[in-house]
């Protein structure tokens, strides 16, 4: 993967002024047009073989998530076992990409997953609000990385972003990325949560996407799942457009993760259509697209059972997690 040269991309030394100038020179987003395009793609009819492919891919792209104050070792273990065997009645069911937990649960998740090729993602940096000093955020991240987290889901400082202090947002991401580095030369993959529901406008979301990509994000992620507006199709399409444009100019491919509020298989298929027709087939892989979800898996499993057996079984035929 080629290295990012932020100065070359921005066209000058990185200062708040240069970042501001760069971000504000990006083309605007027309809300009506964006939402109309999404509505049009949502009418795609996904049937038979393409539906089967889409449901399996949706599972493979899933970051199966539990982010509750009430999380326990047992709860995390149970979720991990669900990830290892999502559907005990059909062992051909693929496994999700990752388990997503709070930092202190990483060790339990690692233990429960054992040698299975399922990653452990940890939310960090004073998730979900991000309201803590940089030192605390870095300590939070280091802790999770040390416990063996394969992926770090950090939040940006929305306060700094909304007050126009882009440099602060940028520096924090760069600093977190640094502590994602391991001694063995590998690094925990960094997902940068924009918390789009708090940025509110599509123009802000595009700018925050670019800022995160410039600072070295491996993934840009919509939401924490903890605010009233989480992932939506138009926001995801906008972010997919951003990573595609970024790839076209830098040859660096960055992933997208919508999170929060995606509950049905039908929704998941709509997202896959948007991935295919916005960023392209290159993004139709768990390496570059993830769903952050908790209840989505069971709905996909039920649809999958319907497709393989011809019968819709219902909630008693999938396990609670």
């Amino acid at each position, binding site marked *: 993967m080629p290295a990012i040269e932020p100065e070359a991309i921005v066209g000058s030394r990185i200062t708040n002024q240069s970042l501001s100038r760069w971000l504000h020179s990006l083309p605007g*987003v027309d809300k*009506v047009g964006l939402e*109309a395009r999404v509505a049009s793609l949502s009418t795609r*009819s996904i049937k038979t073989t393409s539906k089967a492919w889409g449901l399996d891919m949706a599972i493979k792209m899933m970051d199966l998530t539990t982010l509750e104050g009430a999380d326990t070792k047992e709860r995390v273990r149970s979720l991990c076992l669900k990830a290892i065997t999502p559907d005990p009645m059909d062992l051909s069911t693929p496994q999700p990409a990752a388990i997503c937990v709070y930092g202190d649960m990483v060790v339990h998740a690692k233990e429960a997953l054992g040698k299975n090729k399922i990653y452990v993602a940890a939310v960090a940096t004073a998730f979900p609000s991000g309201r803590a000093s940089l030192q605390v955020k870095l300590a939070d991240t280091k802790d999770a990385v040390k416990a063996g987290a394969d992926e770090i889901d950090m939040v940006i400082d929305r306060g700094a972003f909304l007050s126009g202090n882009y440099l602060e947002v940028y520096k924090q991401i760069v600093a977190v990325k640094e502590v994602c580095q391991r001694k063995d030369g590998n690094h925990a993959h960094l997902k940068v949560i924009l918390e789009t529901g708090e940025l509110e406008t599509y123009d802000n979301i595009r700018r925050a996407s670019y800022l995160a990509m410039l600072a070295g994000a491996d993934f840009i992620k919509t939401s924490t799942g903890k605010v009233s507006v989480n992932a939506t199709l138009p926001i995801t399409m906008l972010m997919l457009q951003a990573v595609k444009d970024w790839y076209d100019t830098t040859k660096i491919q960055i992933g997208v993760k919508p999170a929060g509020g995606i509950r049905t298989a039908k929704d998941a298929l709509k997202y896959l259509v948007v991935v295919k027709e916005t960023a392209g087939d290159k993004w*139709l892989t768990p390496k570059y697209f993830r769903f952050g979800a908790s209840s989505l898996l069971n709905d996909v499993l039920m649809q999958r059972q319907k497709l393989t057996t011809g019968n819709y079984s219902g909630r008693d035929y999938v396990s609670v997690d």
Partner: protein
Amino acid sequence: MFDYAPAPESRDLVKFQDSYGHFIGGKFTKPSNTYGTINPATEETLAQISHGTAKDVDAAVKAARNAYEKTWSKLDGATRGKYLYRIARIIQERSRELAVAETLNNGKPIKETRDADIPLAASWFFYYAGWADKLDYAGLGPNPMAHGVAAQVVPWNFPLMMLAWKIAPALAAGNTVVLKPAETTPLSALLFAEICQQAELPDGVVNIVTGFGDTGAELFDHSDINKVAFTGSTNVGKIIAKQIAGTNKKATLELGGKAANIVFEDAALDQAVEGIVNGIFFNQGHVCCAGSRLLVQESVQDVLIKKLKARMENIRLGDPMDKNTDIGAINSKAQLTKIDRLVKQGVKEGGQSWAPTCAMPKNGFWYAPTIITGVAPTNTVAREEIFGPVLSVMTFRTPAEAVAKANNSQYGLSAGVWTEKGSRILKMADQLNAGVVWANTYNQFDPASPFGGFKESGYGREGGRHGLLSYLKGSH
């Protein structure tokens, strides 16, 4: 990979008769003098259609006159409105059937007939049904009057929707009609005749005569019609204008276009790309108001064209009955030949043509979505209406130059402006000689909004209160 499996709409939703006569005085005549109407996507014959003669036209006009004198002009507005509401509801009830019929006979994707053509046709009847008992407020003073018998000829690009644009205001205003659908797309009009029967519309209020150009000429030539309404090519429009000159026949002509879609450097580029695609590739570009000339500010030309090409790679051309098809079949072999000829001419005159790679079905008439870059205002493809999925790309440097180039056309039907600057939208709209100017969108239609052109794009307005006035006269 994620290739969409076929998702065809059911062909069985519509049953055509083997052959159709004309619909005159509330009844279908015996089929005579027939020709085959085909599905342009497969070239399969769908039904036999009667080619109307002077005699058929005369019978239809007599039926319309009779219905006007004896029934329709005697009804109060609210009762006329009741019939129009009824028709609107039946169109909604039979929308899937009508969508399939339209797609089979026209070649356009089911996605469009389902989501645009048929819902818009119903909305036109709903809208004008509301006007029927409020004509006093149309702007002509109290008790405005209908013209009498309206003769209407509609094109093949939006067969049922164009029928609705013509028939709904005519009936609301109190006229009776004789309508001739295009020779290649008569089937939805004949289904509409059945709907008139189903709605128990008084006999003779709506008459449908099928046939070719000569049938239309006979209709407009008839001495007992009061109003001429035509949508079609500018060439035919000119012939009609000459034909009816010196008579008392009122006319609305909705003719060709060569609309400029103007993209400024500060536009929301991704959405502008969508608007360009929707502007020229909607309905295979068979749209009189299509944004067929892209005027892009030089400073963003490269990035815009790159994005446009990437977007065009995703356009799905193929079976119009498949719910995921974006571009269907060209309506006729004649039209395909014309498109091909004009694009070749454009390349000969120095344009560079580009189209995404897409597999073409073996039967039927197809043309890949195409853009021609490096076009100069003097080139044929910048001046002539192609009426196909072909976009001519030109550049400009300043807003004044954009206006000058956009207005440099024999037509003036529509235009698009893409900019994030609100004040510029208003100024452009003020300066563009076009009946419709869309800002940061394209091809939006609403029955409440008047539609029509400047210059050789025709005269008269359809839609809204203005469209109603085309079918009324003051009572003094």
